[in-house]
């Protein structure tokens, strides 16, 4: 992960997460996410974004948080360099990478690069490649 880039911060399952901004293609509200039979629970299904079929990973479920409630207009963050999108609750915005404040992730917290202590809780820096790879067989 780059040490000096920008981040896109968002919320999922009540917690704050961020991914490198240069991995973000767009945020979209697909009309539907069709469930995929046989997929691991963190995969919420398939969405069509700009005519492309994209696998959607539920960040909350993947991080062991209570699953995002079924949103009538789900919000996804579509990533570059993978065929996936992240299902999130809301987007906080673009933020600078808090260099010097990043601590290694606690063991067992899944696909994270690191965490940053904040006034109210933590900002978790997601390792998007590892997140997607976890579901693969």
């Amino acid at each position, binding site marked *: 992960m*780059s040490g000096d*880039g*920008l981040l896109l911060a968002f919320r999922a399952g009540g917690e704050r997460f961020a991914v490198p901004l*240069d991995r973000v293609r767009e945020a979209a509200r697909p009309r539907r996410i069709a469930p995929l039979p046989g997929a691991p629970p963190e995969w919420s299904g398939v969405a069509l974004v700009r005519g492309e079929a994209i696998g959607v990973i539920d960040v909350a479920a993947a991080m062991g948080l209570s699953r995002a409630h079924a949103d009538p207009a789900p919000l996804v963050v579509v990533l570059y360099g993978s065929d996936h999108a992240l299902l999130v609750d809301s987007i906080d915005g*673009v*933020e*600078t990478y808090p260099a010097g404040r990043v601590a290694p992730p606690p063991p067992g917290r899944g696909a994270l690069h690191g965490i940053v202590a904040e006034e109210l809780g933590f900002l978790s820096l997601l390792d998007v490649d590892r997140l997607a790879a976890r579901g693969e067989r």
Partner: protein
Amino acid sequence: MTASGPIRRHVLIVDDSGPARLLVRQALEGWARRTGQRVDVVEAENGFEALRELPRAPIDLVLTDVNMPTLSGLELIRMIRSRPEQSALPVIAVSTERDAEDAARARKAGADGYLGKPFDVETFDRVLGEVLGSKAPEEP
């Protein structure tokens, strides 16, 4: 937005090959990350599109493939150099060759720098550094 305003470069990539444009773009984005800058990339598939894009957007740097059908990279560079408002625009020729002869050909046409494909990160950074110097692009 809480960004402290990194240097922002507007770069035009000209190549008739989609994968090649993608690879140059990735290299450029990596370079921007390593040097704490941001890049806005405009892509053109041929010399015609490039000539059309140039006056349209505030371009700070051109990376053009040498070997393109109809209007070659050398022909494009000659055209850029002939336009008064673009005559000082930094141009890097990107070619499959890595020999001095080809580099000389590109420089003769008016290129400021030369990159042989495939290039590694160090070469890419060095050539961009040489061509752009340390000066920031002029921002309005």
